[in-house]
């Protein structure tokens, strides 16, 4: 036991003192925030507000209506013009217009206006073109109302009286499915990243010990199983440390922003966080996160350790052998996104109970509420099966590891690995 502690300590200290750990701990939240804001910013920037010339042959699209429509929303600008279609076509680049529409003469307003070409000197995307359509519809709506003799007050009544719905869970009145969905999504993805990144760290660590031949020195002092377990636990602690540092980081940022006081965006954010706290069971979610993170980590990293012990220094061997294991993790993420759409459906339920996918899928379900969405027995069964699952994979991996760590030469197949696991000493 004492020796396992020594191994854990070495593993933990060497990893935590590495520059890559410090950098990745600091950089990941920044990258994450950068990604979220960056995408929003870029999306905002790439959206273009079109200025569109309107050539009206119908007489309906007059300057007054166009000015009113421009006043209502600014996502595109319509300008009534007297220019001829031919000269517009030829000189569009020289004008201040991005595109133009020609409104034909209208025989019967009831037929509407269909497939009016929005002509431009380049191909316009749907997202850019849609505001023009909705603006023209705005004007068209005004024309229709006039034709039908509907007054402004009637229009207001029509618009303000509507039916909307809001999903409410009768077991959990506070649950907000939007917040729960976001939390679940983030938690599921975080576990996914941790499994892949730290799982492969375990694999690389084992490969390093094997190719350095230090493994043979160490297994003459401790049992191979102790060496493997020490490595897994040590790296697991590193991952946990990183996670808690992030939580602390969020906490500090939150309190600093809160203390910095006024400002609409600050109070909006503080209010948002308070809303999150009131709508989900934070201690339970946090506890489950740590549980599923550790359970999933043990489940997968022992398999990665077994693979690391079986291959030689060649990275490609390791990749091809670890492919099925990595596929399981990726498959779990696919299950999770299906479960997000229907957190009580059969895929969500089974995905969150079967050990290989439960760490990711269950984490996506839990924020929706326990026992509202996830009955206690689901959670209990899922946890028990995950424990049984990682006890099994650790045992299985230990058997492979014991043989693999001292075996040099040809890369074994999965069939051979399974044979190693089930033969007697």
């Amino acid at each position, binding site marked *: 036991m004492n020796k396992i502690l*020594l191994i854990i300590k070495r593993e933990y200290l*060497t990893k935590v003192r590495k520059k890559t750990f410090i950098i990745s701990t600091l950089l990941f939240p920044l990258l994450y925030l950068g990604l979220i804001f960056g995408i929003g910013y870029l999306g905002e920037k790439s959206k273009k507000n079109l200025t569109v010339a309107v050539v009206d042959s119908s007489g309906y699209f007059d300057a007054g209506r166009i000015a009113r429509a421009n006043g209502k929303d600014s996502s595109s600008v319509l300008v009534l013009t007297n220019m001829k279609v031919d000269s517009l076509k030829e000189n569009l680049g020289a004008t201040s217009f991005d595109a133009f529409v020609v409104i034909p003469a209208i025989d019967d307003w009831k037929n509407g206006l269909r497939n009016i070409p929005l002509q431009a000197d380049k191909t316009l995307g749907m997202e850019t073109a849609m505001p023009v359509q909705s603006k023209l519809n705005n004007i068209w709506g005004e024309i229709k109302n006039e034709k039908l003799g509907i007054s402004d007050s009637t229009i207001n009544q029509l618009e303000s009286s509507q039916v909307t719905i809001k999903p409410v869970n009768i077991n959990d009145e506070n649950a907000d499915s939007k917040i729960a969905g976001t939390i679940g999504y983030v938690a599921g993805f975080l576990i996914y990243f941790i499994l892949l990144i730290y799982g492969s760290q375990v694999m690389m660590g084992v490969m390093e010990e094997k190719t*350095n*031949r*230090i493994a*043979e*020195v*160490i297994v003459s002092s401790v049992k191979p199983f102790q060496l493997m377990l020490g490595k897994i636990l040590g790296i697991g602690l590193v991952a946990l440390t990183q996670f808690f540092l992030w939580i602390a980081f969020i906490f500090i940022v939150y309190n600093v922003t809160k203390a910095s006081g006024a400002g609409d965006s600050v109070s909006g954010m503080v209010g948002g966080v308070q809303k999150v706290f009131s709508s989900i069971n934070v201690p339970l979610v946090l506890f489950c996160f740590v549980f599923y993170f550790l359970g999933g980590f043990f489940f997968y990293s022992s398999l990665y350790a077994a693979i690391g012990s079986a291959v030689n220094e060649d990275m490609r061997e390791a990749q091809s052998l670890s492919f099925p294991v990595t596929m399981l993790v990726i498959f779990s993420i696919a299950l999770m996104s299906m479960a997000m759409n229907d957190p009580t459906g059969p895929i969500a339920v089974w995905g969150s109970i079967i050990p290989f996918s439960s760490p990711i899928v269950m984490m996506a379900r839990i924020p929706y509420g326990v026992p509202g969405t996830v009955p206690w027995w689901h959670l209990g069964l899922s946890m028990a099966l995950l424990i049984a699952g990682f006890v099994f994979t650790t045992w299985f991996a230990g058997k492979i590891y014991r043989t693999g760590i001292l075996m040099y030469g040809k890369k074994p197949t999965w069939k051979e690995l399974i044979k190693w696991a089930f033969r007697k000493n």
Partner: protein
Amino acid sequence: MPLLELQNLKKYFATQKAVDDISLSIEPGSIFGLLGPNGAGKTTLIRMITGIFYPDEGQIIFDGKKFDPVNDIGRIGYMPEERGLYKKMKIGEQTLYLAQLKGLTRSDATKKIKEWFIRFEMESWWNKKVEDLSKGMQQKLQFVTTVLHEPKLIILDEPFSGLDPVNSNLIKEEIYKLAQSGTTVIFSTHRMEQVEEICSQIVLVNKGQKILDGTVKEVKQNFKENLFSIGVNQLPGSLNGNSPFEVVGNKEQAFVVRIKAGSKPNDVLQYLLQQGSEIHSFNEILPSLNDIFIKLVEGTPTARQFQQVNN
């Protein structure tokens, strides 16, 4: 009472009888040479003694009791042929870690490491990394990590490979000192001249079986071919049929002769004196271990063939 006794040890792998019924015993304080060609089963044998492998059959008796890997490996030091250290770890920390894994307390280990580092002029290495060391320096470090916890049994697999003569001698001296203080050393190698120089007892294994066992002296006696080197001014012109020897060679004013069966060295001297030869020297030529090794191993395929093992 022997420190280590192997009784009918067997270890079969899927395609090889790696160790096939080997028994031997090693006295405390002796330097024991474990010899054999590549793939003879030496590493497998050593791995069973270090508790890495369990034997399929047979028993290991360590220090009078049945070998119990969990408790006994703290009293064994093993330096494998393929050296292994963490490349990126600081040398002081690494040595401390390996010593603690062998069961030493932190303070005890620190004290001992400092002693050894001073003895081997390695004090300035403490905060360096293994990757900064040359191959020979790594070798010295590996030796220190092997003997640091004062094991009763030390197993060294090719300890001198990659060392210059000065450092070889340094380690050789340490091995002698350890043996004198009662430590038993198992020394595995193919370098016969080192075995002749260092070992008191040897075992030769080939194809998983023991084919030779004894002290270096005994082995040489057993394999002697009754060859003598005689330094004379002149051999008798013609040897008649009843001379007790035949000449097999001549080098540097000395003749190499083989004494015929039934005759003794004294008969040779007598014969030569009677013939009036003047004798300067008369030496027995014993075979070198190298010759014996080659003679015994020759004829068997140089590489072990794979075979089906039924077990």
